[in-house]
């Protein structure tokens, strides 16, 4: 098994793509975490793995097949969830297991498979291909723009589906939009951290920022800062110690979370809630 660490030449590429991916993952992830859908990114990534395996099996560049497979299966299962009233966590489990199961079968059927290709998707790799970076930047820009223009509606339907529906917000369509955006985000991030670690970028920066953010905007900006810090530090640690980049990024994000918990419980930083309570008393 080979894990890629960052080399001196690949630092600029890794930084550019890593920062873009961090921004998008933390922004999309905040909505998923608030909807109690934290593992949805993981489930999408695993079903995307089925798509990657299918792409390798038929000999086509697998990423966009993976994207379609992830989004279509997530949308299909969401429809099924609504129709048959199945819980969200069960849907996540189904998506996760089925994608991985299909992927394993397809991999076992693929002749002359370069195992390195599979490892890249499972554990992430250092992104050096210029075309890849352009795609990541373009997709990140589009996703952030969509979130910017729809965030009020997305936030409202995240806060209360019923109230949002009663205000005429197309709640179901907003849900589908979020799934589609999350699907594309997973595909572009899969290259940085891999299928197995993707939910870390969706969840860790957001859970850390929710400890401090008073408003939604504040929480999102803080989450983006945490995610970018984790990625940039992870890349440099990977270069310095010649260890796997994806693991470094995730462990730094986890360290930020643990640090946030310590700072919060020590009372060094007063959060909005605590200030509000103090003022009331």
């Amino acid at each position, binding site marked *: 098994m080979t894990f890629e660490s960052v080399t001196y030449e690949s630092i600029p590429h890794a930084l550019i793509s890593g920062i873009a991916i961090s921004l998008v993952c933390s922004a999309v992830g905040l909505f998923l975490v608030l909807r109690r859908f934290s593992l949805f990114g993981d489930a999408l990534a695993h079903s995307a793995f089925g798509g990657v395996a299918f792409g390798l099996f038929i000999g086509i560049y697998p990423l966009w097949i993976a994207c379609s497979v992830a989004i279509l299966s997530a949308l299909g299962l969401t429809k099924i969830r609504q129709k048959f009233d199945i819980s969200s966590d069960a849907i996540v489990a189904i998506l996760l297991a089925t994608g991985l199961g299909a992927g394993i079968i397809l991999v076992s059927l693929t002749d002359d498979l370069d195992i390195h290709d599979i490892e890249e998707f499972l554990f992430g790799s250092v992104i050096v291909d210029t075309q890849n970076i352009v795609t990541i930047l373009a997709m990140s820009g589009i996703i952030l723009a969509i979130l910017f223009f729809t965030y009020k509606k997305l936030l409202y339907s995240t806060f209360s589906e019923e109230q949002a529906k009663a205000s005429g917000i197309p709640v179901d369509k907003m849900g589908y939009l979020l799934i589609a955006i999350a699907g594309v985000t997973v595909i572009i991030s899969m290259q940085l951290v891999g299928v197995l670690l993707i939910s870390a970028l969706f969840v860790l920066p957001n859970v850390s920022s929710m400890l401090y953010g008073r*408003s939604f905007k504040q929480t999102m900006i803080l989450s983006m800062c945490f995610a970018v810090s984790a990625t940039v530090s992870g890349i440099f640690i990977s270069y310095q110690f010649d260890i796997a980049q994806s693991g470094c990024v995730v462990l730094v994000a986890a360290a930020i979370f643990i640090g946030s918990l310590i700072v919060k419980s020590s009372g060094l930083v007063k959060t909005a809630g605590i200030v509000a309570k103090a003022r009331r008393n």
Partner: protein
Amino acid sequence: MIVDIEKLSVDYAGIKALEDVSFGIAEGDFLGIIGPNGAGKSTLFRCMLGLHTQYDGTIKFFDQDIRDSKRYLSQIGFVPQKPVVDRNFPATIREIVSMSQNSNDSKKVEEALQKVWMHEMADRRIGDLSVGQQQRVFIAKALVNSPKILVLDEPVTGIDVYNKDLFFQILGELNAREKISIIWSSHDLDAVERLANKVACLNKTLFFHGISEEFFSDDEMLKKYSETSMQMHMHHH
């Protein structure tokens, strides 16, 4: 008429929730809907707000059938039953009020918050408020698009007396000063008698709709209401 409901019937898997309910709401009405648990009050509201679409009969807002267009919803402010707010949801009161806003006019948000006396707390997290304060924020949220009518589904259940009185005072002012029609469901007969100018008494069918004083001065009607409530109460237990 702002709202016109005709022959509304709903059944859930063969069990009647509402049967042949017809009434209207005129401009400026303050209508209290009373009825025991399971009388169909919430079902009525869900139908009016387009949340439940499997019904017979017609519901018209501003002379237009609500099945034809959802545009009427922008003229309605909805305040739900005791809100379930996640304590950790990272949003301020100002953000909660503005997320339902059709425009980006921050002045309207401030005005709505002032009407419910929450403007000084606008930057607090919604999860840090008491249930009573949260309900006032939800009125502000309902007011931000300058609605013609407010729909409130048992809004004061579980709220302390102080906040309940404040809540009713705000509703009274909105109805009297801003001429906003109000339709409000409640178990609290005293509050309905004090505030509402019209009463609708519901127990799957509508057995009274008219002037509030007529209902509360009719001993027969009150007796019938308490008997039905008691029966429903026994049925539920």
